[in-house]
């Protein structure tokens, strides 16, 4: 044993000199235990997050924790050596010239980047579709004479061919590439085939082509026969767009009409994967960056085209660009491939040419003033008439489209009426040209009615205003009406639902229609109706609003509620509403078209008056701003509101709290309006300003809801449970009245007060709620007169005495105690039973049956009535103790 070992043994308390300290013992107990076998550990074992390590592919540890070195661990994560990375030194000598190195991006990449690049270079050949890769070595078997070694070498070195199954079968049958299929043909036949191929599909080829003349020098060639040409494959391109037939994206009008389009596809190369809409122009994003140029690169042959040596023949791909390059296009074939009828020649001029006329000379100083034109047309505007018949008579200009649609006139009728004043109406043009009139809608029933009947119908229609349909009196009239105004008859007011939470949030949120108070009021009302599904606020269409308009308005509100609901929580605190409310002019999108007023202004005075009113309105919008602008500071620009400083703030400033906390008020004193509307929110205030009824907001608030809490209680309902929320609250919060009250009520004058006192104290907690019941049946007042000294309820405590001692107690005492118990029990019962509905009446009585005074004789009777027996006393005592 070495001295070290001895010392170690001494450290662990083993006497080295003892017999037990032999070699074996040392090995067993001192030697380091072998680590557990790593192999046996489950590699997929769960490792807690803090034990997991990130290692790169070389096993170096990445992502050192802050306490194990941080970024400085592992040689600063650089190159894994202590010296780090040494920059390359430039060495150049006469004998060994340094080569001028051009820095490549790869020089600055690490292994991962390089690996990425390598991965990205693996080109996926999208054209290689026909690879049934099961037959990779087709030619191995077809020369069995070759020795296996050569075959193996060939399969290893040659790239696998991409022949299709058909090509492979053909090859097995002895066909070779370029040899065609079928018997060999003469030169002439072959030329014919070439021609056929060049015109691709070849519908009506002239059987004898004059241009296939055999040359003089091809006499030699005539002696031989040739392999036939490959049959062109008919490739039908899938039409995955919605263009018209023959249309190519980016084709101009001239292209589509003339021959100029033959110069190839003008548009960019669109990715074939995208179906472009007819209106979509191709832009840079649609370019297929992976499409390698044009379609003629694609392998359209059934066999592997790489070993095709016959380059001189035109390829049979069938792509347009190739077919266009044929020599006989202009005479023989339309652009879409259809052959021209024999005897016709395709024109090479466009059908229609745009003619451009030079602009007229604009007089100097002329300025475009569309208003002048509009104002010219204004006085010619037809007088306002809801009367459709009148339109026929005095119309000089075209009707607006909408009116025209609803006027019930067919196209030719309208144009008939206009034809006098304006000779270039479509109908007149059509009649000049000799067109047959358009198949118009069948004439309206109105046309066959007398003037009187029409008047009558019109009056009926006017009386039923909002839905513009008149009341049909007969079936035919109904039919005619529905043909007149097809949609509104079926439409019903429809109010979209939104989530109450969203609606509540949107009420407090942005007010999107603040420039239009009417709309905003309706919007608010809509939100309120949605926020509280049980609310009775209903929206109705405005008087001048049709039901579809109303529906779209409601849809708009629902949309705005979703859009403008305020952000919740922390985000909401970061924004405030803008101070300035936009009261700017309402901008109508689109081109300005003069709004033809129904009523032309009577005279200039009216117009100026209108203008004055408008400016006044503008002023009324912001009196405060106007006052400030005019320097009229003072009451107009000042507003005072109540402000509640925090209590701590008042304390710090040494100021008394100006608005001390209001005492918790009885809920009945609160205004009933708070149940339906939040008075603090300004928009509801606005809604009240603009009288709500005008906007169709019907608020049928049940007044009973507020009176249910506020009104006097109906005694007949007391105790029925469902009509009063506050029922029982006074029971729970009951405070014992002072003894004087009880005295005043229950004590008669002749009773001596000591007796009274004792009675009270015996009762302990006396007394029970509800004293206002009118039909109280005053029960015989029970009194317990105590023989012993009075018991003070504050100091009284039940004491446990031995059974012997208890039995020795006087009978009277026991009885007295029992009485007490009994009374407590009654009391208890009363309190409890008030909750129960079934014996409510009884309990009410019990409550009043307040044991108060009783003479001794009565007491005995009372005892009899109460069916307590002395035997049951122990149980009762226990319960009495429980009560305390």
């Amino acid at each position, binding site marked *: 044993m070495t001295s070290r070992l001895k010392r170690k043994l001494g450290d662990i308390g083993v006497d080295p000199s003892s017999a037990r300290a032999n070699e074996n013992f040392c090995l067993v107990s001192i030697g380091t235990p072998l680590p557990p076998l790593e192999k046996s550990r489950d590699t997929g074992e769960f490792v807690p997050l803090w034990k997991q390590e990130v290692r790169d592919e070389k096993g170096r540890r990445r992502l050192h924790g802050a306490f194990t070195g941080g970024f400085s661990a592992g040689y600063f994560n650089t190159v894994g050596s202590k010296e780090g990375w040494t920059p390359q030194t430039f060495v150049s000598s006469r004998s060994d010239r340094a080569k001028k190195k051009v820095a490549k991006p790869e020089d600055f990449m690490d292994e991962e980047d390089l690996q990425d690049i390598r991965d990205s270079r693996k080109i996926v050949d999208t054209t290689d579709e026909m690879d049934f890769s099961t037959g990779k070595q087709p030619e191995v078997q077809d020369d069995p004479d070759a020795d296996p070694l050569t075959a193996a070498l060939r399969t290893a070195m040659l790239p696998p061919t991409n022949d299709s199954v058909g090509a492979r079968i053909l090859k097995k049958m002895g066909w070779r590439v370029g040899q065609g299929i079928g018997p060999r043909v003469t030169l002439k036949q072959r030329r014919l085939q070439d021609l056929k191929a060049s015109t691709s599909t070849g519908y009506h080829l002239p059987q004898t082509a004059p241009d296939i003349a055999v040359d003089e020098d091809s006499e030699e060639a005539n002696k031989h026969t040739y392999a036939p040409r490959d049959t062109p494959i008919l490739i039908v391109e899938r039409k995955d767009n919605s263009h018209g037939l023959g249309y190519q994206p980016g084709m101009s009008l001239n292209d589509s009409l003339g021959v100029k389009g033959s110069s190839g596809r003008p548009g960019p190369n669109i990715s074939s994967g995208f179906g472009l809409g007819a209106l979509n122009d191709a832009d840079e994003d649609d370019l297929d960056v992976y499409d390698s140029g044009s379609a003629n690169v694609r392998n359209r042959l059934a066999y592997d085209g790489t070993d095709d040596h016959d380059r001189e023949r035109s390829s049979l791909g069938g792509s347009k660009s190739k077919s266009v390059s044929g020599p006989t296009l202009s005479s023989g074939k339309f652009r879409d491939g259809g052959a021209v009828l024999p005897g016709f020649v395709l024109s090479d001029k466009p059908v229609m040419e745009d003619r451009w006329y030079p602009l007229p000379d604009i007089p100097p100083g002329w300025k475009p003033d569309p208003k002048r034109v509009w104002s010219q047309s204004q006085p010619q505007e037809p007088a306002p008439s809801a009367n459709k018949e009148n339109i026929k008579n005095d119309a000089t200009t075209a009707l607006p489209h909408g009116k025209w649609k609803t006027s019930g006139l067919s196209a030719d009728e309208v144009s008939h009426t206009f034809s006098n004043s304006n000779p270039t109406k479509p109908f007149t043009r059509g009649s000049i040209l000799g067109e047959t009139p358009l198949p118009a809608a069948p004439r309206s029933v109105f046309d066959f009615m007398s003037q009187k009947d029409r008047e009558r119908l019109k009056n009926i229609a006017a009386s039923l205003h909002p839905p513009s349909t008149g009341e049909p009196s007969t079936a035919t009239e109904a039919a005619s009406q529905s043909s007149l105004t097809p949609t509104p008859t079926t439409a019903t007011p429809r109010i979209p639902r939104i989530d109450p939470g969203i609606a509540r949030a949107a009420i407090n949120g942005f007010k999107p229609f603040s420039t239009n108070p009417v709309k905003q009021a309706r919007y608010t009302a809509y939100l309120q109706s949605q926020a509280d599904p049980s609310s009775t606020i209903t929206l109705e269409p405005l008087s001048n609003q049709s039901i579809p308009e109303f529906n779209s308005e409601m849809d708009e509100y629902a949309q705005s509620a979703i859009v403008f609901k305020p952000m919740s929580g922390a985000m909401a605190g970061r924004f405030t509403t803008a101070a300035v409310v936009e009261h700017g002019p309402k901008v109508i999108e689109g081109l300005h078209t003069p709004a033809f007023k129904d009523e032309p202004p009577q005279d200039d005075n009216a117009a100026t008056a209108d203008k004055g009113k408008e400016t006044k309105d503008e002023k009324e919008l912001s009196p405060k701003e106007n006052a400030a602008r005019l320097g009229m*500071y003072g009451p107009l*620009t*000042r507003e005072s509101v109540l402000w509640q400083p925090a209590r701590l*703030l008042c304390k*710090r*400033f040494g100021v008394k709290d*100006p608005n001390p906390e209001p005492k918790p008020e009885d809920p009945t004193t609160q205004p009933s309006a708070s149940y339906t509307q939040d008075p603090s929110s300004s928009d509801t205030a606005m809604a009240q300003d603009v009288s709500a009824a005008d906007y169709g907001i019907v608020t049928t608030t049940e007044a009973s809801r507020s009176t249910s809490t506020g009104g006097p209680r109906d005694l007949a309902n007391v105790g029925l449970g469902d009509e009063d929320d506050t029922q029982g609250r006074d029971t729970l919060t009951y405070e014992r009245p002072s003894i004087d009250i009880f005295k005043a009520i229950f004590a008669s004058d002749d009773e001596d007060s000591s007796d009274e006192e004792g009675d009270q104290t015996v009762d302990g907690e006396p007394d029970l709620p509800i004293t206002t019941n009118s039909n109280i049946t005053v029960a015989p007042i029970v009194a317990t007169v105590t023989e012993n000294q009075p018991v003070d309820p504050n100091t009284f405590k039940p004491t446990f005495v031995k059974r012997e001692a208890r039995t020795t107690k006087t009978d009277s005492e026991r009885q007295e105690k029992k009485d007490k118990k009994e009374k407590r029990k009654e009391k208890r019962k009363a309190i409890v039973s008030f909750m129960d509905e079934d014996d409510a009446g009884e309990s009410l009585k019990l409550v009043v049956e307040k044991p108060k005074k009783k003479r001794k004789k009565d007491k005995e009777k009372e005892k009899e009535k109460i069916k307590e027996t002395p035997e049951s006393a122990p149980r009762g005592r226990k319960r009495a103790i429980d009560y305390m």
Partner: protein
Amino acid sequence: MAPSRGPLPLARNLHVTLDGHKGPVNVARYAKGSAKYILTGGQDRTVRLWNASLGTEIKAFTAHGYEVLSISVAHDNAKFASSGGDRSVFVWDVTTGTTTRRLPGHMGKIHAVEFNEDASVLASGSFDSTVRLWDMRAQSRAPIQILEEARDAIQAIHIDSTTILTGSVDGYVRAYDLRQGELRSDYIGHPVTAVVPTQDSQTLLVTTLDSHIRLIDATNGKMLNDFTGHTNSSYRCRACFGHGEASIVCGDENGMVWAWDLLDAKLLQPNPPPQVHSKVITWTEHHPSDAGEMITSSADGTCKVWRHPA
């Protein structure tokens, strides 16, 4: 010297120039008490303490990470508060030069800070349009109350014994009266950049960005006087009262210091005043007690102390 009617002429003799700041000086405040010292805060993120009569820089307080926009000195000169681009209020101990509190909570630049009279409450007004009232007595870092009535950035705060005055870019001067529990908002109509009340708190001097300075009656919001002539349309140029509140002094964006008679709103001579700063004058403050001293700070990087020739 015969008793002169009207205000004393303005102190227009340059006494010293305090040019320690490296960028625009945004604010310059006198210390309390005898006001022998000046605190300036600048765009260079420092607050500097100067001796007004000698013009020497005593100390630079550097903890701000952004520009300093406002300074308020406590009543006992023991501490001051500063605020600026870094959305917290810094409360400094003057002697040690360290911050004792940093009160975060605002969501934007803090344009104004103000102590109340016994420095138990600090108010800060920010670009986020709120005024936060901080308790300087308790350890709690939460504001006592947040005044959120303003609709735009708060540019000016003044606190007197029972009222908190705020001026906001939304064109309102708001007076939060603690004693009456009332908020009186006066609509001025133009962005308010400074609100300075008179000693008796009866009138307010309101500087707005329409090149007007208005004297507003605090009790009913009426305008008592309107002072114009200077140029102030885009910068905060704080106007102040001259000595004895007999005149109005304001530096404008052309570097000129203008003075008006308080009563008849007439410009005091010289008219037009000479240009004394090369850039916009951001702050003007008259000495609280000395009749012949005032300071101006400017975006040209200097703060100047003006005195009467004596």
